């Protein structure tokens, strides 16, 4: 009967010759390589925080714009249209309220005013003068 205790206790697994002479240097080289790799971060690793920051602000600006249009944009547009409509309507309203007599009277008054505004002396001087430049001037 074979018992475990009957078998000599030994480690039968051997490493290749020279393995342990070179291993410390290999490990040191790998550690140095990893240190250098850690010291030189890639482009994305460097700019990642800034890209996230920029993206955050673009998203924030977009949301602000959408929110602004939703809550105030429609009201603002409606106010502009309402004001424009009101002005046009009031102009029409005022025009309708002026009677024909009032308009004719205003035209006649204008003509009368112009005639009466010229003093008599001016009229005489005008009719007697030879210099026609003043005629041109008055016209």
């Amino acid at each position, binding site marked *: *009967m*074979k*018992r*475990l205790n009957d*078998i000599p*206790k*030994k*480690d*039968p*697994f*051997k*490493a*290749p010759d020279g*393995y*342990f002479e070179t*291993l*410390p240097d*290999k*490990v*040191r080289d*790998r*550690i140095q390589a*990893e240190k250098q790799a850690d010291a030189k971060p890639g482009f994305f690793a460097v700019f990642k925080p800034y890209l996230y920051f920029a993206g955050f602000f673009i998203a924030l600006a977009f949301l602000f714009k959408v929110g602004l249009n939703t809550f105030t944009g429609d009201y603002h547009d409606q106010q502009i249209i309402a004001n424009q409509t009101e002005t046009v309507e009031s102009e029409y309203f005022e025009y309708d309220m002026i009677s024909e007599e009032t308009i004719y009277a205003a035209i006649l008054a204008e003509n009368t005013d112009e005639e009466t505004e010229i003093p008599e002396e001016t009229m005489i001087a005008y009719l007697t003068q030879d210099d026609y430049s003043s005629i041109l001037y008055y016209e």
Partner: protein
Amino acid sequence: MNEHLDDREILERFRTDNPDYAFHLLVKKYQEKLYASIRKVLVNHEDTNDVLQETLIKIYQNLNTFRSDSQLFSWMYRIAINEALGFIRKQKRKYVFSSLSYEDSLIQSLHADSFFDGDALQKKLQEAILKLPQKQRLVFNMKYYDNLKYDEISEILKTSTGALKASYHHAVKKIEKYLQED
């Protein structure tokens, strides 16, 4: 320089004086013991080499966090076994759709191993160990070859000492039964 410093002196040097040289001394001191522990779990030299290098790099990166109230080699051994177990987990995923199990591949590696230094009986013993369930195999290797105490194994494998004793007992029985065959 003196290459036979004790652990405390190496640690002191690592923390204050010349960390790279201190670590070089540490690797020189423990590389063979760590290699042997990992090799018994993974069998294959190439896999052992990969895991041992990863283990040593992890040790270097975390040596500053090591608390001097425990044994340095126990701490390093724990890292080595955890790395080996992580390696096995990854390897087992590769064998999910294969007709061959990972354990079968280890037995194949054993027979193809040109660095195996033992007679037919030694090879049969290793076969018997490789046929054990993974936990029993780990417990057996730690107790039989690495001479760890149950408390230390308990800390590494997060298993009660009672369960470990039972595992070891079952492992020895299975191995002896396998050795009696033929």
